[in-house]
């Protein structure tokens, strides 16, 4: 049987593709990333700086731009903590308890992903606008919702609702209920169990969810455009102001604000990466037992 000489052994990994296929795939990814992600980002910054740093910074110091920045930060500061709390509560409820209609509730949490933000904005206008009974009463009482901060926050909370819950649910499902049950058998109260066992175990997923939620809250356009009324200097957030400036051919001002918004997003991602690098061991320990 051993008459035929054996072909020299070639060591090849079972999961590796031929060299040409590898380079082709890598090339497609790099090209795609370049055209869709990096080039536009660079273009935004380049466009903002066509008349130099001074002009770009001056356009950011403008009264309306400052108001827009302040409004956007206010929106994020209110809606992100609200959604963090909602998200934790929803994920906790869904993953630690058994009840009928769980699948329906999960679908409901995802609703903002599937509903167009414009529709969400219109719903809020219909509910709280001056023409509705509730809205009329609110305006009469001096607390207008539509065309004011409360409406903008409501719209943002709706659109960013799934981010925290969506990050937490898979992690909490994987971690199960055993650690919480162990804490209870050791005499810990429900609140203590939540604070000392549940919360530390989900802290990285929570942070990631909060960062994503924050990025989206600052960048939300559609829903806010409908409910804000686009009152310059009052209800125009950064994305709304960018659109208005762009439509008025003020491209340096528009792109400077756009660059600022992009920067806020990039800083968010940078923060996340730094935290991940610094706490890699702990993240590994809490995700895989």
């Amino acid at each position: 049987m051993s008459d035929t000489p054996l072909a020299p052994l070639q060591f090849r990994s079972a999961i590796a593709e031929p060299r040409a296929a590898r380079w082709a795939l890598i090339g497609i990814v790099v090209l795609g990333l370049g055209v869709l992600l990096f080039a536009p980002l660079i273009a935004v910054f380049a466009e903002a700086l066509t008349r130099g740093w001074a002009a770009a910074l001056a356009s950011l110091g403008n009264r309306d731009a400052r108001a827009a920045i302040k409004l956007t930060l206010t929106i994020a500061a209110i809606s992100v903590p609200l959604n963090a709390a909602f998200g934790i509560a929803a994920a906790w409820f869904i993953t630690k308890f058994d009840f009928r209609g769980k699948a329906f509730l999960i679908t409901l949490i995802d609703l903002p992903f599937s509903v167009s933000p414009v529709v969400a904005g219109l719903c809020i206008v219909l509910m709280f606008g001056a023409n509705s009974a509730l809205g009329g009463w609110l305006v009469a009482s001096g607390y207008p919702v539509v065309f004011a901060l409360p409406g903008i926050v409501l719209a943002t909370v709706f659109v960013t609702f799934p981010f925290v819950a969506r990050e937490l649910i898979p992690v909490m499902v994987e971690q199960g209920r055993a650690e919480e049950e162990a804490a209870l058998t050791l005499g810990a109260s429900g609140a203590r169990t939540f604070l000392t066992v549940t919360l530390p175990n989900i802290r990285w997923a929570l942070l990631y969810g909060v960062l994503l939620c924050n990025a989206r809250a600052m960048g939300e356009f559609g829903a806010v455009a409908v409910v804000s009324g686009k009152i310059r200097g009052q209800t125009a957030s950064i994305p709304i102001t960018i659109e208005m400036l762009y439509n008025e051919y003020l491209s340096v001002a528009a792109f400077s604000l756009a660059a600022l918004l992009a920067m806020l997003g990039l800083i968010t991602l940078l923060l996340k990466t730094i935290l991940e690098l610094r706490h890699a061991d702990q993240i590994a320990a809490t995700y895989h037992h």
Partner: protein
Amino acid sequence: MHIEIDEISKAFGTTAALHPVSLSIPSGALVALLGPSGSGKTTLLRILGGLEFPSSGRVLFDGHDATGLSVQERRAGFVFQSYALFRHMTVFENIAYGLRARPRALRPTRAEITRRVTKLLDLIQLPDIGPRYPSQLSGGQRQRVALARALAIEPRMLLLDEPFGALDAKVRKELRSGLREIHDETGLTTVFVTHDQDEAMELADFVVVMSMGRIEQIGKPQDIRARPATAFVREFISG
């Protein structure tokens, strides 16, 4: 502590996990609940620990009705199947958890907590692993830490759910005698759940054979071997 299970039943929705079962566990006994999966043994253990509540029937601890006691009030040392160690805490913090969770008036001092945790680490023969995290331990070490954590609260009874299930054969043998020694040393009434008949027969004073939510036979290991009460028991212990 004497445990009396009086006509306990449990239904999840429309499926009955336990038909009414009664069982008397004398103080200080080491008892195995033996049966295949789905026999209701884990449900019964969780009812004793207060993690599930029965659909009907009563649990009595030393003659007092304990059916309505919350999981915290039961003071049952519970060892979970996959140990459920707190993964973000060190071994020391894991074992100290139950002591630190006590109301302020009953909480031991910091020095006392350290003393007790050290003593428990000695008891499980792992004196040096206090600063480590659960992910840095072997399966056998985790199991022993889970046991120490359960013992730290000075429990009234010890409940173990498949304590050796996730371990290889050699470690299993060692830990079996380890559990026996700890039981004999503490004198705690101990109930453990297993599907492994050798484990039940070798370790327990009494074996409770369960199937389909019913108790098939209760007896000393040698009696069950010599005189299986039902066809199921005969088949299960020969298999």
